[in-house]
């Protein structure tokens, strides 16, 4: 055994038990998947292995030797590197600087930015990760930043690579490329831990699978074709879950969102980020936006919510021109799940309740003239925590103590319950486990059936195909196609995304 984690327990101070007597092992040259519901303890276990946090109990052996992994530096010395679920990059640095940070190539003590940039570019090409290495990191989308995190560990050439939900924001093509690279790494004797909620991916690429449930290890199984996604899901949850939803659909109603000739020009570079976008979303339909990440989807959403002013064009919601309204005024019509929960969707240091009542706080019953009704707020928060099965110790816990998926549930719960006419969903299922994803999808379809208009941006093409009634494809800031997911299949959408003819 390359790595053995024996009888690991973790109690987060003061009293959150996150892991109970977990055994976990890695063999050289395997891809080991780690699965479990939101809050099961996956990230915790991997943070312990990568030295970010310490176990409360238990021991770790690497190559049979007992080790104390007290810091990421020690982990790095042991050849262990981790790509974290919650992205932590220096926003003001360029991508390649972030990648090489801490182990920059240098000559005679001087940094070599040219060389770094070149090396990182080659690395990105080799691994098929489509990202502009010279861009300023904070201008990238979540998916872009995710790729930077992956490159960062690949650059360090570690022996044991831990990937905590690396594909949550990647497009299927990018995931494929990443998997190919993972296979190559495996051939070279590297070991990879892969955390994911996408069970088909897990079954496709891993050699062994470990299932965690509520801090306990349920099993480690060999992935030799004897296990199915349904069985895995059952192990994770402890009961059978239904994975299908029925798509009963009513004809679409009046237009809710009408976007005309929307353009956005980047002031510094003069680049057209949005170029004459026209689109309409009707009441009672889900409209998907497909596209390779970085083709204007981000900007479109930011313009729609009012964070950026369009250079030209107009936006109408329910017949009213909102082009010049600020986000606050637009919020009267729009529910919005941003892709970046950490920076946009949540106040991590505030309590779950304070996060859940945002935007709701503007209207009764929460707002009573000057006041905010505390008891209504508490009941409201408790209800959402229950409905969305947010794993926590109550409405007054801080959001930063929640697992990634549970943080996402806070955002989703708040916005879905807003009851607005237009719902913007930007990667809404990022980090959600199977059951929560299912729950969200059902909610979205329910909203659609109650005549709401939903605009869905997702890197997950399957999700788009399953949920959408119509799909717009975006490329280079333009809408290049409008497709009906019932008549075309995934590959056709893919062709349009890449701009090659079918």
């Amino acid at each position, binding site marked *: 055994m390359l790595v053995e984690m024996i009888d690991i327990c973790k109690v987060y101070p003061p009293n959150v038990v996150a892991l109970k007597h977990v055994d976990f092992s890695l063999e050289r040259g395997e891809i080991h998947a780690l699965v479990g519901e939101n809050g099961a303890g996956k990230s915790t276990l991997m943070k312990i292995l990568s030295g970010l946090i310490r176990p409360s109990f238990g021991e770790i052996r690497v190559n049979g030797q007992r080790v104390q992994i007290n810091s990421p530096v020690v982990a790095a010395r042991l050849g262990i590197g981790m790509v974290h679920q919650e992205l932590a990059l220096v926003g003001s640095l360029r991508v390649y600087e972030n990648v090489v940070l801490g182990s920059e190539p240098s000559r005679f003590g001087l940094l070599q930015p040219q060389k770094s940039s070149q090396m990182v570019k080659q690395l990105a090409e080799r691994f098929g990760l489509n990202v502009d290495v010279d861009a300023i990191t904070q201008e990238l989308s979540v998916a872009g930043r995710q790729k930077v995190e992956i490159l960062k560990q690949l650059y360090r050439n570690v022996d044991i690579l831990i990937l905590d939900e690396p594909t949550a924001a990647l497009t299927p093509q990018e995931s494929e490329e990443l998997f190919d690279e993972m296979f190559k790494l495996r051939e070279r004797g590297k070991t990879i831990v892969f955390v994911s909620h996408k069970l088909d991916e897990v079954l496709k690429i891993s050699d062994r699978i470990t299932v965690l449930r509520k801090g306990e290890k349920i099993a480690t199984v060999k992935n030799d074709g004897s296990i199915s996604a349904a069985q895995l899901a059952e192990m994770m949850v402890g009961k059978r879950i239904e994975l299908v939803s029925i798509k009963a659909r009513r004809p679409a109603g009046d237009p809710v969102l009408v976007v005309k000739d929307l353009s956005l020009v980047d002031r510094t570079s003069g680049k057209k980020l949005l170029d004459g976008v026209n689109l309409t979303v009707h009441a009672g339909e889900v409209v998907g936006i497909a596209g390779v990440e970085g083709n204007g989807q981000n900007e479109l959403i930011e313009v729609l919510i009012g964070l950026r002013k369009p250079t030209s064009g107009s936006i109408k919601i329910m017949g009213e021109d909102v082009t010049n309204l600020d986000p606050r005024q637009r*919020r009267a019509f729009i529910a919005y799940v941003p892709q970046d929960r950490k920076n946009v969707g949540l106040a991590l240091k505030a309590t779950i309740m304070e996060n859940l009542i945002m935007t709701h706080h503007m209207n009764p019953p929460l707002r009573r003239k000057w006041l905010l009704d505390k008891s209504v707020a508490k009941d409201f928060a408790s209800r959402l925590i229950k409905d969305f099965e947010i794993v926590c110790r109550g409405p007054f816990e801080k959001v930063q103590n929640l697992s990634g998926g549970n943080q996402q549930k806070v955002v989703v719960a708040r916005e879905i319950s807003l009851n607005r006419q237009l719902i913007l969903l930007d990667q809404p299922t990022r980090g959600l486990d199977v059951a929560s994803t299912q729950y969200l999808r059902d909610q979205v379809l329910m909203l659609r059936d109650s005549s709401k208009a939903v605009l869905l941006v997702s890197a997950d093409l399957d999700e788009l195909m399953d949920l959408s009634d119509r799909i717009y494809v975006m490329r280079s800031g333009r809408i290049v196609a409008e497709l009906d997911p019932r008549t075309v299949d995934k590959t056709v959408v893919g062709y349009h995304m890449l701009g090659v003819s079918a």
Partner: protein
Amino acid sequence: MNHVRPILQTILAIVFAFLVAAIFILLHRSSPFEVYGALYQYGLGSWFSFSNTLNAAFPLILTGLSASIAFMSGVVNLGQHGQFLWGALVCAVLGVYLRLPSWLAVPLLAILGGLAGAAWAGLAAFFKRRYRMDEFISTLMLNFLAEYMTLYLATYPFLDPKAYVPATRLIRPEYFMTGVFGVNVAFFVAFFMVFLCWWFAWRTWQGYEARMMGYNKLFATVGGCDVESDTTLILLFSGFLSGLAGALLILNGTQHRFTKGIGANFGWDGVMIAIMANNGVFQTFFYALFMGFLKNGAVGMEFETSVPSEFVMFLQSIIVLTLVGTRSGIASLTDWLRAKRELGKLVK
């Protein structure tokens, strides 16, 4: 239990801070008993010294609140000093010329002083809205402006010809605020403002918006908070509190006039108290009292013992630093102990 634990931790930290300072007193070849005896005697020991401590604390409470309310909302108002001076000057000048029955004039003067402070902070709000100027820099610069402008006004147009230093005339004696058993009425006003601030921050929806803005501005913006108005409101409110401190010091202090160098450190002490208090409202109140106690007790340490006044300042700093340092240490220690207990249940 949730509230009791931090209080106990703070008390422990205070005890520890005094122990650490005691070591320095020993190094200075003085007796800690003697020094702390004097501190206690002058800061808390009798009703007289206790009420003096409260009286010393009221401007600190207000400037501390001013900083806390701003910082908790992510608004960096560092202009307490300038806002304080304007509050004091406006109150001092109007207190000379205004002729009204005192039951009306006194509250009016206090409020006008507060409004003067608010107006001064309002300038920063205006610059921010109009020219996107960071309030961090504008409030800081406005301090210098306020200092010179108020000094000018006190030296030339409103100078008391009989004074030896730049100072305005005494305000009308019937406007002097009194005390209740030696405790200034101004203290009760400050106490009331503590509750008002708490109520604002934790009960009103704009207080909620302001706090969320302090946690994450982008989150608040996207969530539909009116970030611009909230920032303006906070600056005005924060300025009002500092201005009120200035006005009350004129009405209820010892001088009853605006002199050069009045309230020298109240502004910056307020910022420091807010930081010690983690921008908590009641914590601010507590630490302002604590600072008032140290200040008042320091007088005793100088009078009664052989330690020089510089050393007293040094001791104050040691106490504050150790207190802040150990407080979080003790908190993580108790958390760690509780985690151990929880683990004990798990492992047996």
